[in-house]
């Protein structure tokens, strides 16, 4: 199988700070891949670098056989890459509906109403809050909106940055179930960044561990879950 996304020795800097120090990873079509790592490891930077902000200082990013290393941020959606970024970044002074419409900004108008229906079926809470200003929604609702907005562009590759952040345990389970559903039913490939390593590795086909801007370990979700070092470093919470 050829990789949908392949990142080759990518470095990224913020001024003098080198946040990614030669990262390589691949994501195959139809997979869910988890990326775990401590705070400041460079996980969010990696997702943003895939989208071109910051641009990779070195290395190559290949998507669907095409080198996208220098591509502009606003051209990513056209390629089929959508991101629900760190901190959700919903538009606070727009309604829920408008946020979803923004997700379909470049999409075909004819698909809009059908896609909205699907999003409301996936997240019934969003349907109830359709005309509420997004900034006044609860953290969990905003998270659903951020994922829903990313899906509105009908992506082939979905980049999710900590979708479970700040959610109650019940909601965490629900969000992960939804990600699985999106992946299975709609065939969307997912690259998932998570602090919640246990859930993420259980869900994912494969996983990577990022330490200080470098990939330290990789393998199937299960093999990483069973690894004693990983258990000590990332699963100390006592899951499973």
């Amino acid at each position: 199988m050829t990789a949908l996304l392949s990142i080759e020795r990518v470095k990224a800097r913020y001024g003098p700070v080198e946040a990614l120090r030669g990262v390589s990873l691949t994501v195959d079509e139809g997979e869910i891949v988890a990326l775990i790592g401590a705070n400041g490891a460079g996980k969010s930077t990696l997702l943003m670098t895939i989208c071109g902000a910051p641009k990779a200082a070195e290395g190559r990013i290949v998507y669907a056989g095409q080198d996208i290393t220098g591509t502009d941020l606003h051209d990513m959606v056209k390629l089929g890459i959508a991101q629900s970024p760190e901190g959700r970044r919903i538009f606070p002074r727009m309604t829920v509906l408008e946020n979803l419409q923004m997700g379909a900004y470049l999409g075909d108008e004819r698909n809009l109403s059908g896609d909205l229906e699907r999003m409301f079926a996936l997240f019934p809470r969003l349907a109830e809050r359709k005309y509420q200003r997004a900034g006044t929604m609860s953290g969990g609702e905003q998270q659903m909106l951020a994922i829903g907005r990313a899906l509105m562009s009908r992506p082939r590759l979905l980049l999710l940055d900590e979708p479970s952040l700040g959610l109650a345990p019940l909601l965490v389970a629900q969000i992960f179930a939804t990600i699985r559903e999106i992946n299975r039913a709609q065939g969307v490939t997912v690259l998932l960044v998570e602090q919640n390593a246990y859930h993420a590795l259980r869900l994912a086909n494969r996983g990577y561990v990022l330490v200080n801007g470098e990939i330290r370990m990789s393998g199937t979700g299960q093999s990483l879950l069973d690894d004693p070092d990983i258990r000590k470093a990332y699963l100390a919470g006592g899951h499973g």
Partner: protein
Amino acid sequence: MEYFLQQLINGLTLGAIYGLIAIGYTMVYGIVGMINFAHGEIYMIGAFVSLVAFTILGTFAFASPVLAILIVLIAAIIFTSVYGWTVERIAYRPLRGSFRLAPLISAIGVSIFLQNYVHLLQGAKMKPLQPIVTGGFVMTGDGSFPVRITYLQIGIIVATVVLMAGFTLLIHKTKLGRAQRACEQDRKMAALLGVNVDRTISITFVMGAALAAVAGLIFTLYYGAVDFFIGFLAGLKAFTAAVLGGIGSLPGAMLGGLLIGLIEAFWSAHFPIAYKDVAVFGILVVVLIFRPTGLLGRPDVEKV
């Protein structure tokens, strides 16, 4: 009562001009976060293009004033749009992402440049124009004080109301408007969703410039004379209107414009006219003391 009504009509007309210019300030501030101090000059250029276009049409002995105004309007909008677009491209875009004061200084520079450029091109003298739209009617007629409203005033007020309603719809109901608001709230996220941020900002400058062109045309028709310096004070007042209404807020800009027009008209009617600008800026100060975000501005606590 009649006197009051007359001042109301005059004030609304003046307020319409300020409101139209103020929208340009407020839209650019909302999206780019900078005060485009050259906007007053764009308005002045709109007025000049109108004057020159009317003069040219006049030499052809153009008969229909409505058609003439339409032609001039299109010419004025095209010219100011080109100026607005170019100013953004040359003076602001290269400075995007540098320190906050840089585009402000650049804007003041552009403003001085445009003033002197028109000064050189058109000379320093007031340029007069034959009245294009004449006539009107008397609204109340008990004889002691007739309240006159001219056709021009009616046209100005109607055109302004239509434009403002149109712009409000555009910002709130269209895809372009949504993209503009998205850029205002989170530029990087907007780009991540496929919005071409640079182009959206350019369009915003062009929209502001087009409204300034309308205001310039109205000024030319209403006062019948233009010079290269009219952009300075009008720009300052319109900026004041935008701040008074709450900078960044579209209805705020309209409200602020109308209020300032009304304050000027009523002040001039009852108090020494030399102090009317003092009154305008005085009220701005008072409002800002009690409502630092302006009348319709949103408090910053909401910012995420």
